[in-house]
């Protein structure tokens, strides 16, 4: 590999890293590509039934009808919840 090719490779990696954003989902930090809507993220997570979850973003409810429009940003805190047994 030539030096210039090596430099280009490093630049590519660095630019990809720069486009990554860190999102906290249910308390767990994840690095994700920079352009992602909430709907795309939920599809990516592979949950079996999206009709049965609700999502909060940075402490505020993210209504289902806005998932497709909601662009995620670096540092976002998401809570994805569902119903479990309780009294």
């Amino acid at each position, binding site marked *: 590999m030539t030096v210039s090719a090596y430099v280009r490779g490093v630049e590519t990696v660095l630019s990809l890293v720069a486009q990554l954003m860190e999102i906290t989902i249910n308390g767990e930090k994840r690095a994700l590509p920079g352009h992602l809507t909430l709907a795309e993220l939920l599809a990516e997570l592979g*949950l*079996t039934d999206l009709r049965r979850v*609700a999502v909060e973003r940075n402490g505020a*409810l993210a209504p*289902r009808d806005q998932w497709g429009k909601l662009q995620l940003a670096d540092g976002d805190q998401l809570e*994805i919840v*569902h*119903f479990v*047994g309780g*009294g």
Partner: protein
Amino acid sequence: MTNASPSDDALVIAGRRFASRLMIGTGKYPDLETMRAAHRASGAEVVTVAVRRVNLADRSAGSLMDYLDLDRMLILPNTAACYTAEDAVRTARLGREILGTPWVKVEVIGDEKTLFPDNAGLIEATRALAKEGFIVLPYFNDDLVVARRLVDAGAAAIMPLAAPIGSGLGIQNFTTLRILREMITEVPIIVDAGVGTASDVAIAMELGMDGVLLNTAVATAQHPPLMAAAMKCAIEAGRLAYLAGRMPRRLYASATSPLDGLIGPRP
């Protein structure tokens, strides 16, 4: 004589009629099939659920709902384990989003060991949620003044404990429940938490409570569907006894059979 007729004796909360006065939970069952069988046997039309993070490694989000009869039962999300009004409000909003129904059982807990409510936080959460259009059923600490504040804050029903959550101790507060029954007439009173077996439920209903919400007593019975059936009978028996109006208590005997016509000498 009470004028309510048992044939038309529905429980009405926020304008919705319930044929059953039993509300049942979904926690602590050995498995979901057993839970479903117990729910059917109970006849309950209100079922509580908790709102929790999805396990992203497991992904089977919402599987509990496969075991709930959504056509017959009203799902009542709770805010269990919330320690601030703010967290209770957030949790209630999330719960509403899942099914789109505005009903919520509000808990704001103040103490970990007893799970007794933080009444100040509870009143605050009840007011905030009622303003947002929720039908709010707060779990509280059997205190008359708190009950009045909750009604003022917009509670659709109030839910005093009878003993600590999950304790199975039975009705520990006859006096305060009776006082609540006499003093609070604006909204239904549902005993929430503390019953251990069917007789506890019957006693709550005989005291004039409008219903009982329970979970652990059925879920952790040796045979949950059988205990659920017992609870159904107890709700009905206790309610009928309340409507019938019990006889006064006497310290001494009062002969049931006449003294006239005895063949021997009169005592």
